[in-house]
């Protein structure tokens, strides 16, 4: 049983460098596991998903980028604000000549790059539309949508479209669109997952972001701890290493038993490395305590020494499933 029954929109954010795009992709694959069809959306024009899945650049047309075990599929979409604006004008207003005139005087440019909040309404609006879209049989086209959202520093403002737009467009269609998006984002059908590392700054940003999201009444999903390192030392050795009390003679004897060079310099280097490792493990323990206080489901993903390639995304997806994410 998944932790997220009934959630149709999964938003994934995280501080820059924490691997939020990788986690979003793994989550999409995990959710696709039971033969489901999942849409994975990116909005930052970085082509991060194309790099990750090793496929050609994504654009405004949704297409299959990966298959999951059990017949599931992940489709990819890169939302471009300009295209969203054109689509929006065409669908909702049937603006022919006027739309071209708007484009000519720079209105589309204005709406997509400059007008406060409008860009975000367009980007989230397309995601919203995909979340609700039904096929001719009346079934949802996608079982869930995963949004690779902007980083933690900007995500609350990005999602809180209503606040930024309603003060501007107090009535009219943009206002209605923003209101509809807001009702989805504030409902239990949405979950915002925050990706972090076990380091000071990302953890602080995670704590701050979750507080902001709660204040904006946007449902917080899981905390995903990415790039978790395997501890090499047990508790006793950790303590000794931290205090600089690892027995050099014991280490030397081990090196010798392993038929390795065992000079004093080598032993000392291993001891220094152990002390640094212990210091890091301490910092990680403190980080875990701060994250634990958030009281959210927490998933751990390991650091992949060889980097992330399409195969690795499948492995991470499997780990997310095992931990209850899908």
């Amino acid at each position, binding site marked *: 049983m998944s932790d997220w029954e009934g959630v149709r929109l999964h938003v994934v954010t995280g501080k820059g460098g924490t691997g939020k795009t990788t986690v979003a992709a793994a989550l999409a694959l995990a959710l696709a596991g039971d033969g489901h069809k999942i849409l994975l959306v990116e909005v930052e024009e970085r082509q991060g998903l194309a790099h990750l899945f090793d496929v050609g650049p994504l654009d405004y047309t949704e297409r299959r980028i990966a298959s999951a075990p059990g017949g599931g599929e992940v489709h990819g979409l890169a939302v471009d604000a300009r295209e969203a604006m054109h689509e929006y004008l065409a669908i909702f207003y049937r603006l022919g000549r006027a739309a071209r005139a708007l484009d000519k005087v*720079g*209105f589309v440019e204005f709406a997509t790059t400059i007008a406060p909040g409008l860009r975000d309404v367009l980007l989230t609006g397309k995601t919203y539309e995909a979340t609700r879209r039904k096929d001719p049989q009346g079934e949802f086209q996608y079982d869930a949508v995963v949004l690779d959202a902007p980083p933690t520093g900007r995500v609350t403002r990005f999602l809180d479209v209503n606040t930024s737009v309603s003060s501007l467009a107090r009535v009219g269609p943009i206002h209605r669109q923003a209101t509809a998006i807001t009702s989805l984002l504030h409902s239990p059908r949405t979950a915002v997952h925050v990706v972090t590392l076990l380091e*000071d700054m990302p953890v602080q940003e995670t704590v701050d972001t979750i507080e902001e999201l709660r204040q904006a009444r946007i449902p917080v999903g899981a905390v995903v701890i990415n790039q978790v390192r395997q501890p090499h030392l047990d508790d006793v050795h950790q303590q000794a290493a931290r205090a600089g009390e*690892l027995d050099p003679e014991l280490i030397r004897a081990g090196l010798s*038993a392993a038929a390795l060079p065992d000079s004093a310099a080598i032993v000392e280097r291993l001891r220094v*490395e152990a002390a640094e490792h212990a210091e890091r493990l301490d910092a990680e323990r403190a980080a875990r305590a701060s994250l634990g206080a958030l009281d959210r489901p927490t998933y751990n993903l390991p650091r992949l020494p060889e980097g992330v390639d399409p195969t690795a995304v499948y492995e991470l997806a499997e780990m997310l499933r095992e931990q209850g994410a899908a």
Partner: protein
Amino acid sequence: MSAARRSPRFDVDHLIDDPRTHVIVCCGSGGVGKTTTAAALGLRAAERGRQVVVLTIDPARRLAQAMGLTELDNSPREVPGITAPEGGRLDAMMLDMKRTFDEVVEAHTTPERARQILANPFYQALSSSFAGTQEYMAMEKLGQLRRRGQWDLIVVDTPPSRSALDFLDAPERLGSFLDGRLIRLLGGPVRAGGRAYRAFFQAGFNVVTGAMTKVLGGDLLKDVQTFVNALDTMFGGFRERAEQTYALLQRPETAFVVVAAPEPDALREASYFVDRLSEDGMPLAGLALNRIHQDGPGGIGEEQAIAGAERLEATGGHDLTAALLRLHADRLAAAARDRRAGDRFAAAHPDVPVTRVPALAVDVSDLDGLRQIGDLLSTGG
């Protein structure tokens, strides 16, 4: 290994000691340690006798505290606890983008007009939430600090943009928007030039405003129009200011330091940035490659360490040494990976000087931590 290219060394002390260096801009993608690098460079320069101000955009709390920044008040404060020789000084500030925008408005119009503009809903949204405002205001603040002439070195951190390039493009975009055709059009047809042009424009104007009213609602359009009319005298000013600051960035007194971590995304961004700087004739000082795992000379190699650990694990009895060997092998693997990432960058940009900053076990939270980063920046080859 002889094929691996080695970048020239980025001599950080030479850069910060050079009295002709007056502006250092730290740029790069999010999460690579940009703000920390800016703060460490500023501290080091001050402790070597420069009068420095560090302009940070959105510092992590601990880092802000390390510099004695407890409030966002948009003006530089002296950083306590530094040990500078005669003449050396370090001030630091956090950018308040709305406040900076307000000041620009106040400086360029009558108090009454300024009040109207500041109260306008469209202005309020523009000045506090538009994604490019932060970049524009960072540039604006840089220009202001430079004009005050109180410091002989300004170190600027750049906003956490979607792309590092936004920092260069957003001011121009906002400037040309505020100064451009659309906003003139929104201000009403009378603003749009000569008589013949006006007659031609009137028809188009009706189509456009009609469509915009339909899309945005009449209220927003009215707010924009009021805003534009209140701005009146400031037109031209925005683009001009953006252009001035852009020109400052191209002068030899400015140095760009591109910051990256040894990861594909961060290095890709760094590459774009390096290319862009050279296209625009902007002075690139070098690349600071942060969080490098280091591999000291001599010792036990990675494969040797793994084989040794396996041997000990099979026979049992030397758990500690086996664990230390595993740890050692991990570190060597990380070091090799980071070195390859750096080599790839060097191959693509052989002329860009690089300094490599080793990964620290814990994050920076005080001035000593920043000093340590400064030392590493200056010695990293």
